[in-house]
């Protein structure tokens, strides 16, 4: 993998304004997709604001790629409408939608050089030769691949091919960029670098709306302004990334978006003016951030593994005790698995006590109320 990085050139920056002006929001209006009698996407209503990165994540078969393909025009909705800007694109063929698309296996045309790949869309649209030259140069510079213009795709590494694929999509100045698991084929290290570079690219093209489909929560958390979590063809939660991570509305979201410890609790005191409720886990009274819980409600108290500490202090006013079962050292982090009244609880710690307890020992865990979230026990979806 080369050390080059997305640089963001002037022409791209200038065009960001044009993209914004063109109306690049995406609106799903009760869009459903079915293959015969099998519904793969239940009526979906969702908005992606201009310049926003929306990450759709979910397990295989959850309908996220189907939703992207519906925007691209490769599957026809069984019902509902899709609008991009002010244009209803539901009945438009893919080549009239003004999109850019990057797919998992790059799909660079192997018989064309890098520069011809990048120029493809512009040539297909009959653009002026001088404009094509300028756009190709800019797009390649943006992704740091200007010196590879004369190469064939087979002469590039996976990461370089992905950059070219992004340059090819950007060269046509798309209203919306569709990224379908674009980093899945890369190895972990390159993937991490590419995520950061895509984030940098979007900062240099703030008007570009991106629909990013992935099953990788780290990519989604790093890149997205908003996340839609899909399950069984439905959106089970949708909202700003940090909000969804910090205050997951349901169990599936809590467990899919990062790791989560979910302690069963009974609400003892309803949510107060500061947004906290008191809840009982067995005999232990805990305080957690709530929404509209009432006393007596059965709930789950969500605590992220990195928010649990083996030492008391500061805002860590909640205390539970578990039996240490496993310790996994992973270099930067050490993962502990404890049993708290039959519920497995994971702790991710960067610092550990000098004398680590042996498996089987009782270990107190501390956490701050602000780092928790109460969610309804029965909200499986």
């Amino acid at each position: 993998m080369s050390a080059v990085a997305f640089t963001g050139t002037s022409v791209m920056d200038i065009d960001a304004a044009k993209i914004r002006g063109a109306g690049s929001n995406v609106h799903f209006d009760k869009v459903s997709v079915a293959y015969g009698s099998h519904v793969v996407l239940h009526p979906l209503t969702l908005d992606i604001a201009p310049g926003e990165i929306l990450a759709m994540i979910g397990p295989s078969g959850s309908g996220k790629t189907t939703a992207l393909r519906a925007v691209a025009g490769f599957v026809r909705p069984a019902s509902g409408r899709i609008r991009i800007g002010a244009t209803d694109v539901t009945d438009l063929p893919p080549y009239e939608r003004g999109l850019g698309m990057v797919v998992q296996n790059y799909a660079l045309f192997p018989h064309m050089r890098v520069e011809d790949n990048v120029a493809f869309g512009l040539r297909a649209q009959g653009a002026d030769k001088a404009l094509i030259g300028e756009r190709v140069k800019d797009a390649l510079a943006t992704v740091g691949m200007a010196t590879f213009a004369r190469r064939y795709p087979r002469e590039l590494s996976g990461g370089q091919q992905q950059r070219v694929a992004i340059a090819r999509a950007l060269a046509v100045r798309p209203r919306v960029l569709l990224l379908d698991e674009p980093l899945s084929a890369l190895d972990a290290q390159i993937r991490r670098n590419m995520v950061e570079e895509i984030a940098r690219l979007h900062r240099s093209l703030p008007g570009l709306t991106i629909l990013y489909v992935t099953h990788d929560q780290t990519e989604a958390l790093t890149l997205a302004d908003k996340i839609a979590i899909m399950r069984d063809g439905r959106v089970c939660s949708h909202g700003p990334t940090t909000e969804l991570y910090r205050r997951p509305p349901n169990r599936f979201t809590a467990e899919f978006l990062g790791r989560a410890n979910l302690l069963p609790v009974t609400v003892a005191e309803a949510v107060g003016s500061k947004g906290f409720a008191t809840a009982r886990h067995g005999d232990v009274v805990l305080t957690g951030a709530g929404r509209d819980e009432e006393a007596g409600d059965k709930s789950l108290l969500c605590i992220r593994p990195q928010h649990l500490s083996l030492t008391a202090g500061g805002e860590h006013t909640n205390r539970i005790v578990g039996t240490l079962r496993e310790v996994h050292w992973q270099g930067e982090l050490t993962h502990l698995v404890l049993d708290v009244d039959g519920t497995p609880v994971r702790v991710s710690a960067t610092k550990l006590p000098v004398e680590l307890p042996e498996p089987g020992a009782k270990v107190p865990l501390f956490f701050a109320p602000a780092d928790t979230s109460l969610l309804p026990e029965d909200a499986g979806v």
Partner: protein
Amino acid sequence: MLVWSRPGRIVLWLLFALIFGVLFLAPLAVILLSSLADQWNGVLPNGLTTEHYTDVVQGQAWNAVKASLVTGFLASALALVSGTWAALALRVQGATLSTVLGLLFFIPSAVPSVSVGLGLLVAFSHPPLLLNGTIAIVMIAHFVLISAFTFGNVSAGLARLSPDFEQVASSLGARPAYRLWHVTLPLLAPYLVAAFGLSFALSMGELGATVMVYPPGWVTLPVSIFSLTDRGDIFAGAALTMILVAATLVLLLGLERVTKRATGA
């Protein structure tokens, strides 16, 4: 590697050499020797000569070579166009229709070529489809017999082609015709060349249907070879066979080079 032991590999190589030598090389070697034989009364020819080559070259050989090459080229080109068209069209149809129509394409290859020739002769011997006695009926016979192979080859290529290429092209604004010309066909190029090569080789060796329909003045190499050997002129027939093999080989090697250059392999 399936066999690790050295003796095991030696046995396999010997087995391969035996099968390849007996089934593939021996008949060709006999034909080659026959084409150069002065007399052949024992195990090996009594003497060698190039006289048979001189005779066939001075006779009708070049006309036969020309007839075979022209027929092979035109029929293969026609089969390539229609086979590719059919493969592209059936790809977007439903599975049942695609399977049924695909099978229809293969029917002529399951029927004896003599029967195909007979069928064409009967079908095109009355107005308004009066083609009997024309070069066109030879072309049609070859086209019918080889189109299944072009269709099969191109279909196999399309099945291996990731839909991502065409979808990305569409998303970038390429209309169907532009996408076909600049993306689909170039990506299919190796399969198209292979299909053309196979069709051409089959056409060059086609006898059964041709012998039923060929008009005077359009005698292909296999028909000439058949005529010579039928008359008992085995050595001249062998010389003509070697010319057929050489012509086909030169063309197939040329096509392979073109494919390699096009795909950068």
